[in-house]
């Protein structure tokens, strides 16, 4: 898929390969590459999942693999957690004596 010049995208880089990482780190860390993600505007039309270059909001030029176009924020308030309601009942009951909510 071609992504047009000027699109806001997210790049990924492997900064260090597993064998380049310090041996003093835990195994689960040294077995995997050290990666970075940067966002910016494409300087030219580029292919998704191929190398691409962006200019970041501070004006730096960065090259990496084009992973995502117009990245969205994916964090939320999460799923319902019944344990929170249980804590809430305990707290209200213990302070006001009318726990059922």
């Amino acid at each position: 898929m071609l992504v047009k010049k000027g699109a806001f995208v997210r790049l990924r880089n492997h900064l260090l390969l597993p064998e380049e990482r310090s041996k003093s780190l835990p195994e689960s860390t040294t077995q995997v590459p050290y990666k970075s993600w940067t966002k910016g505007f494409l300087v030219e039309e580029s292919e998704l999942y191929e190398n691409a270059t962006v200019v970041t909001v501070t004006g730096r030029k960065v090259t990496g693999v084009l992973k995502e176009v117009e990245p969205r924020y994916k964090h939320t308030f999460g799923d319902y957690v019944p344990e929170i309601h249980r804590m809430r009942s305990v707290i209200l009951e213990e302070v006001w004596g009318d726990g059922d909510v």
Partner: protein
Amino acid sequence: MGMFKINIHDLESRKSEIIKNSVGLDYSDYEYEGIGFDYDKLMNESGFTFDEVKSIQKESMVGNTPLIELKNMTRYVRKFSQKGHGARIFLKDEAGNLSGSFKARRAAISVYKAKKMGYKGVIAATSGNYGAAVAALAAKHGLKCIIVQECFDSKNVAQPEILEKARACEAYGAEVIQLSVGPELFYTFLHLLDETGYFNASLYSPYGVMGIETLGHEIATEIKVNEGKFPEAVICTNAGGGNLTGTARGLQNAKATKTKVIGASVDLYGLHMASDDDFNRKSFTTGHTGFGIPFAVNPDRSDVPRSAARPLRYMQEYYTVNQGSVFFITEALAVLEGLERGPAGNTSLAVAFKLAQTMKEDEIIVVQESEYTGAGKHHQPQLSFAKNKNIELLFGNPMDEKAGENIVFPKSGQDIDVNKLDMDKIKKSYLKKYMDNKLENPDIEFLCKELNITQEHYKKLMEEAQHERKKR
């Protein structure tokens, strides 16, 4: 242009030059012969007076946050206290600062300094509230800003709290560079300082710490004016040590020399901070023992040659508390006081809840911070995330919690419990790195100041440390 790679050997060889150019301070001006340096000179002569700090912060909508009595929380405490006990709990609502946390106090001074020295931008390495603070202050001063954060594990799963911080930084116009797990973050940080020539807005520079002195000062003076005395205790959530250090210095500055300074951290013993596997098995990304202990024992492991955050100079007691209790108290703060805050910033509140039970009812304990909350950084998304990582959520004895395996909530407020850490043991760990040095008198004087101990106490701890090594 090639792929963006980092060359650790090259960066390591130029480390001191890069740092020197980026902090606007020549740390060699403060070094002694031997192991020590002149900490007071570093803090007092590196740029700003206390009054200047105050006025810089005021112009940036930082500081003078509300100090509120948590009356319902105190009522809760007294349910479990013996007659005549149950101290009054006050909270300094630091969420009211620009960007939503006390970190704005630190960023205000760092970014002001950067602007004054003519830097075009600022960089900070942080996954926490400090990033948002630096980004917000940089926006206010018209400076560019880059925030570097450790965010994802190797399966590209991020801590929800850190994603929220990234969003906040970007909302203030900063560039955010997100990294996978590993201490190599430091080299990415160096690389960026070198590439951009921006200012290193370190949490550990004198600016990063003197910005918090106003917090301690405000607490002391406000309580004194309203209650006719200084508080008996001030409790600080402790990670890198700057929060506690600056607060304690501010209390001293206000002459509240009898106020006890207490540290509190979430207990994450057993989880390795550089482990890709462990990274997403914790529910707190700051305020925990994984930072609190190493930074207390070795403050100069930071991103400047000499850290201005030196908690063992000021900390009188240090407690840990489990994750489940902090979540419980976070919920209590919301439903009893109408304050949706935290969770990490509520670590010290959870400890205060327990300690207040043993204090007299006319005594005052001040919890010196709160932080904003929102999508990602709130107990619901964090617990929901933990469940998805197969962390068991249980009700029981909080002391049975095993970080990374389960989270144990207390069944009652009465069950919230804390671990009191052995300060001598922590101080011995600090001393261990000097066991093989030939220490002269000035070195020993420095160590006594570092650990806030007498020469006799120093001798005893050093002998014990030597003895423990032989046994091993």
